[in-house]
Every structure is written in structure tokens, then in C-alpha cells.
């Protein structure tokens, strides 16, 4: 049991030492086909591209705005309980969160329309897991300190419990259209196939123990809490049965859910790129405007009501004839009746975490043209079209907003991009968000003939001591790209 708890604890913090959904390095890095997934209206130059299945886009991100692994587990000789007290309980607030996102591209293909060369179509499938857990400050304090001692009279906010997570497989089809030399727009339709989803995001209530009106203490609780789960029970039941076919059953259920056999949803992305002048471009996109209707394998848990108790109370003469000696059980029953814990299987709609990107980019340092000599670049590549490929350098800023259970989570990025011929392109970013103020990222895109490889690493300064990082992300992938008919 102890090992189990420890394992969960280590995995928990280990998982979150990796890092949020902002992909500032990939955004508008239009040499990489996957940038189309962040802005359907990005300028495309390929004739076609094919992602290497499963290897075309892998990204892992994890973040903690509060404590890091190193804060707790550094071998520094400080008492562990003291570290938890000072660095977690005293330091973290209900706004702090642990979040983790991972994405694996199953396949991803794009091609330019034969009859409409201004259109670039792309489609594919990717799996995404996204989990965010806000620090339940008051509940943690209640568990650590209890309601007694100095906490007499303190109201513990049950609304501090807020978490959300899902694993979803996404099938998508997008169209990118060059409207003019200055404007490119795009949209992508998405079909979501949910593997599982859980959320407990609109909790409210309080628990308080204070001097009673009659007895020494009165404990009062008001609760309106709910945990909704979809697709979780199916996996839990298989694990709980623990038969010789457990692995097979899990695989079968997972495959079924991935391939549209679970709860389904719809969504879309949209975006554009617009040249303010030949060297200045603005872009914006909105991603995952969509929902999943959860109707299968639902298990919801609720705790709603209010109760107050001063313990067993006897008032004479009113209770003189009450010879019931099971007053304790009566008290427990009264509380459970006033504050019922219930389960139901009502379907619910879960919204996808909407993301918005915006950027402004200034290109400078015209190339010598050799970089374009052999690429047979597509319709967006001609000079005057504002394609940054003819410039060696780009500098600009990006804004990222993401809808989270407790509001909009913003991030601001400044970037510089350097193109070294047609084979190598580098992008470096500095990002400020709730996880880090020292997030410097570096991305590399290498084009070796038709083979494209990219790797993007975030928060590089933290690599000096990964365990002390509040945020880390790594994305990489392989593609085959063609710019011409050869």
C-alpha cells in the first residue's frame, strides 16, 4: 500500500515535471507541416507532405506553477514534512495547477489541389491526452492540519477542488486557401472520439467547525460537488476483474474507443495569415472549438446539501421519552440524509479546451535566392507573396490564450527565426506564462532532401536541473515533403 502511494506520488510529480498546450515554437514555423495544425491559415508552400506514421508529431508537455520535483525530493537533508509544509501548503494557492498534455500523431497527410493549386488539403488522426488539476489548497490544509486547533472557525472552501482530464482521438480534415498574395485562410473540421473524460469543475461549498451555540463545537458543511466521468468505469471494471485476459480486454476497449466506438464530438479550427506589407505578417487562429457528448459508460458522483451537527444532543424535558440508545447512528443517518452522496449515469457535454493564437512577424535580411532555386516551391512561395522563406530572419511576438476550468490562461512569446539556406531553420522563443518567466525555447527544422525532421524544446534553461523545472516540453517528428512534381 505504502509503495503504491509512493508510486502514485512520484508518478504524479514526475509526470508534471515534463509540460501546457502552448506550442509557441511550432506556431507559424511554416517550414514544418505540423504548423498547419496550429493555424489552418498558415502559409503553405508544399506540394504534398506525408508524416511518418506515429513519428510525424510527438509532443509531451507538463507544467506546474507551484512546487517542482526538486523542491520536494532534492537530497538536501531538509525534513520532508517541513518541505511539504513550507513549499506546498504555505506557498501554493488555489490558482496553482499541475497540467500535462501529450499528443501523438497517428498519420498526417497534406496535398495541393490538382485543379485548385491555391488550396492545400490536409487530413489525419492524432491522439491527445490533457489533464489539469488545480491545487485544492483548503482540502489539502484540512487533511494536513485538520479542523481543530488554530483552524477552529476557519471555513474550508470545497470549491478548491477542480480538475479535468481526457484522452481523445481526433480525426481531422482541413482546407488551406490562398485568397490573395496577402491573405491565406484555413479551416479544419474535427471529429472527436473520446477514450475517457472526467471533470469536477463547478464545485462549491464549505466546511467549518466553530464554537457551537449549545455544545463546544458545531461542524457545518454546505456542498454542491460533482465528479463526472465518461469512459473511466469500463477500464476500471476490466482492471478490477483482473483476469488472464485483462491486457487483451484493455487493448480491445481502447481500440474500440479510439476508432469511434465511444463518445463522439465535433469541433473546428480556423485561422489566417495576412501581410500588412511585404515584410510584416499577422496571423491568428482558434483551435478546438468543439464539444464531446458523453452518453456511454457514464458514472457521476455528487455530494449536494447542507448539514450541521453539534454531536449528540439531549434536551430535557423534550427528549425525556426518547429511549433510543442509537443516537450516534441516528446522527450519522441525519447527516447522510441532509448531505447525500449519490451516483448517477446522466450524460453530459464536455467542452474542448479552446485555444487561441495570434502573432505578428517582421521578416528581414533578404536571401540570395539560392534557397529557392531547386525547391519548386508552391503557390505561396513567390516573391511579393510575402513568404518569409526569401528572408533569412524573422522576429516577432505571439500571444496564446487557452480556456481552462478557472479562466483564460495566457502566454506571451517573443521569437527570432533564422533560416540557413533551405536545409536548416532555427527558431528561438522567450515565453512568459504562469509556469515560468524564464522560458527560452529552441526549435530546429532540418530538410534533407524530401525528408523533414524537426525538434522543438522548451524551457531550455531548466535543463540544467530538469527536476527543478516548472515547465518542460518536447516536440519532434519526421515528414516527407515534396515541393514539386519530381
Amino acid at each position: 500500500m505504502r509503495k503504491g502511494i509512493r508510486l502514485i506520488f512520484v508518478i504524479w510529480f514526475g509526470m508534471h515535471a515534463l509540460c501546457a498546450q502552448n506550442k509557441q515554437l511550432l506556431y507559424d514555423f511554416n517550414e514544418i507541416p505540423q504548423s498547419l495544425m496550429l493555424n489552418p491559415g498558415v502559409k503553405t508552400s508544399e506540394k504534398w507532405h506525408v508524416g511518418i506514421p506515429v513519428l510525424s508529431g510527438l509532443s509531451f508537455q507538463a507544467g506546474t506553477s507551484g512546487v517542482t520535483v526538486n523542491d520536494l525530493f532534492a537530497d538536501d537533508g531538509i525534513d520532508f514534512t517541513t518541505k511539504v509544509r513550507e513549499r506546498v501548503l504555505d506557498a501554493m494557492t488555489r490558482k496553482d495547477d499541475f497540467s500535462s498534455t501529450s499528443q501523438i500523431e497517428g498519420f498526417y497527410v497534406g496535398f495541393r489541389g490538382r485543379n485548385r493549386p491555391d488550396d492545400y488539403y490536409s487530413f489525419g488522426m492524432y491522439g491527445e491526452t490533457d489533464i489539469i488539476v488545480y491545487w485544492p489548497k483548503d482540502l489539502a490544509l484540512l487533511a494536513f492540519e485538520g479542523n481543530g486547533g488554530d483552524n477552529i472557525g476557519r471555513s474550508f472552501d470545497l470549491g478548491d477542488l477542480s480538475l479535468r482530464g481526457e484522452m481523445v482521438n481526433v480525426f481531422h480534415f482541413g482546407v488551406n486557401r490562398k485568397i490573395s498574395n496577402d491573405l491565406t485562410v484555413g479551416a479544419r473540421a474535427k471529429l472527436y472520439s473520446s477514450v475517457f473524460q472526467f471533470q469536477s469543475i463547478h464545485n462549491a461549498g464549505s466546511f467549518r467547525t466553530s464554537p457551537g451555540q449549545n455544545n463546544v463545537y458545531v461542524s457545518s458543511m454546505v456542498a454542491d460537488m460533482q465528479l463526472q466521468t465518461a469512459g473511466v468505469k469500463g477500464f476500471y471494471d476490466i482492471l478490477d476483474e483482473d483476469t488472464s485476459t485483462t491486457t487483451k480486454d484493455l487493448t480491445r476497449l481502447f481500440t474500440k474507443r479510439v476508432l469511434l466506438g465511444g463518445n463522439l464530438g465535433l469541433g473546428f479550427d480556423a485561422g489566417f495569415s495576412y501581410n500588412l506589407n511585404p515584410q510584416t505578417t499577422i496571423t491568428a487562429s482558434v483551435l478546438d472549438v468543439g464539444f464531446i457528448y458523453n452518453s456511454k459508460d457514464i458514472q457521476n458522483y455528487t455530494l449536494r446539501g447542507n448539514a450541521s451537527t453539534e454531536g449528540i444532543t439531549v434536551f430535557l424535558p423534550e427528549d425525556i421519552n426518547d429511549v433510543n440508545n442509537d443516537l450516534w447512528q441516528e446522527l450519522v443517518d441525519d447527516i447522510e440524509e441532509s448531505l447525500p452522496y449519490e451516483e448517477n449515469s446522466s450524460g453530459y457535454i464536455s467542452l474542448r479546451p479552446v485555444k487561441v493564437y495570434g502573432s505578428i512577424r517582421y521578416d528581414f535580411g533578404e536571401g540570395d535566392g539560392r534557397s529557392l532555386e531547386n525547391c519548386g516551391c508552391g503557390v505561396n512561395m513567390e516573391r511579393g507573396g510575402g513568404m518569409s522563406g526569401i528572408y533569412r530572419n524573422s522576429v516577432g511576438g505571439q500571444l496564446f490564450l487557452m480556456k481552462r476550468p478557472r479562466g483564460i490562461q495566457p502566454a506571451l512569446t517573443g521569437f527570432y527565426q533564422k533560416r540557413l539556406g533551405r536545409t536548416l531553420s532555427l527558431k528561438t522563443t522567450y515565453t512568459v506564462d504562469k509556469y515560468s518567466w524564464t522560458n527560452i525555447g529552441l526549435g530546429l527544422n532540418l530538410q534533407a532532401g524530401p525528408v523533414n525532421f524537426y525538434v522543438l524544446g522548451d524551457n531550455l534553461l531548466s535543463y540544467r536541473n530538469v527536476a527543478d523545472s516548472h515547465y518542460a516540453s518536447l516536440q519532434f517528428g519526421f515528414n516527407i515533403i515534396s515541393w514539386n512534381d519530381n
Partner: protein
Amino acid sequence: MKGLFCRLLVALIFFSFLLNSCSEKQDFDQFEDLSITPTLASGIFYLESDEATINAAGDVGVFYAQTVNFDAFNEEFVAERLLEGTIHYELENTTSKRLGITIEFLDENGNVLDVESFTVEPNMPEVFTRDVFYGPGGKSIDILVTTSSLRISGGNLSDSTSVSSTSDPKVKLSSGAEFLFRLK
């Protein structure tokens, strides 16, 4: 050729940077040292009686006697984790009676594990308080974890005719506890 070499060098440096990440030594076994010992507070039992009820019990009579199941302490989760605790009693008597109140802690077989007795004087000007500590240096914690029921009795140690001059005379026994648990 020179250009290609430079580009590969840049790529190499980049990869080296990513792969050469390091971490200070971490000791995950520290989790075993985590100590979580919350203090839980709760009201336990409250008894209130007016003077008329006491008088109705007659001279030197028992005006209240009740045995109530009380499994709060010996619930498995509580019994395994209880480290120490203090039960706080408060007595207020504005009746004209001298009263004796007794709380007996009984195990599941009805055996008396502990007794807490109070003799309260009539028309007490102040609230009488008593703290009883269970744990190291105090009474045995086993008393609490094996308590299955409480036998509470209130007796009149005076006559059954006198009436207090205070308005709404009553005797009130209140009790609450603070317990230290080890969750981890």
C-alpha cells in the same frame, strides 16, 4: 561544403543541449518520512435540562440516565490512527440544585472502561471546565479506541422543591474533543 558543415554543427550543438539535460540528485524515498497528523475537532455530547425536570425526578433522584451507542472512536479508520486526544467538558448550572453527572465509557460488552464524574454546585457563577487528556502522559488511548457506548446519568443531590430565582434555570453539560490522528 563549409556551409553544410556549419549547419550540421549547429544541429549537433542543439541536440547536445537537449540531450545533456541533467538533474540534481533526487531522493524519492523521502516520501516515507512524510508525516501527516491532523487535529480533528468535534462536538460529542450535549445534555440540557430545566429545573422542573430535575424536581420531577424527586428527592435525590436520577433525572436522566441513558446509554447511547458511540462508535465514533472505535471505527477502524479512527482506532488505527488515533494518537492522542483531549475531551473538553463544560458545565453550567443555574438551578438551585446540587447535581451529580457521570459519564461512563463502556466497551462493546458493557464493561466500564473509564468514568468521568462531576459534582456541580447550585447557582454556579461561572462555567466549570475540565480537560481530560488521553495519550502519552494522560489516560490510556485504549479507553477511547475501545469505547463502544457512553452511559450518561444525571442525579439530583438536593431537594425536589426549591426553585432558582434566576430566569430559566438550567443545567448544561457540553463536551467536545480534539484528536490527533496519523494519516501518514
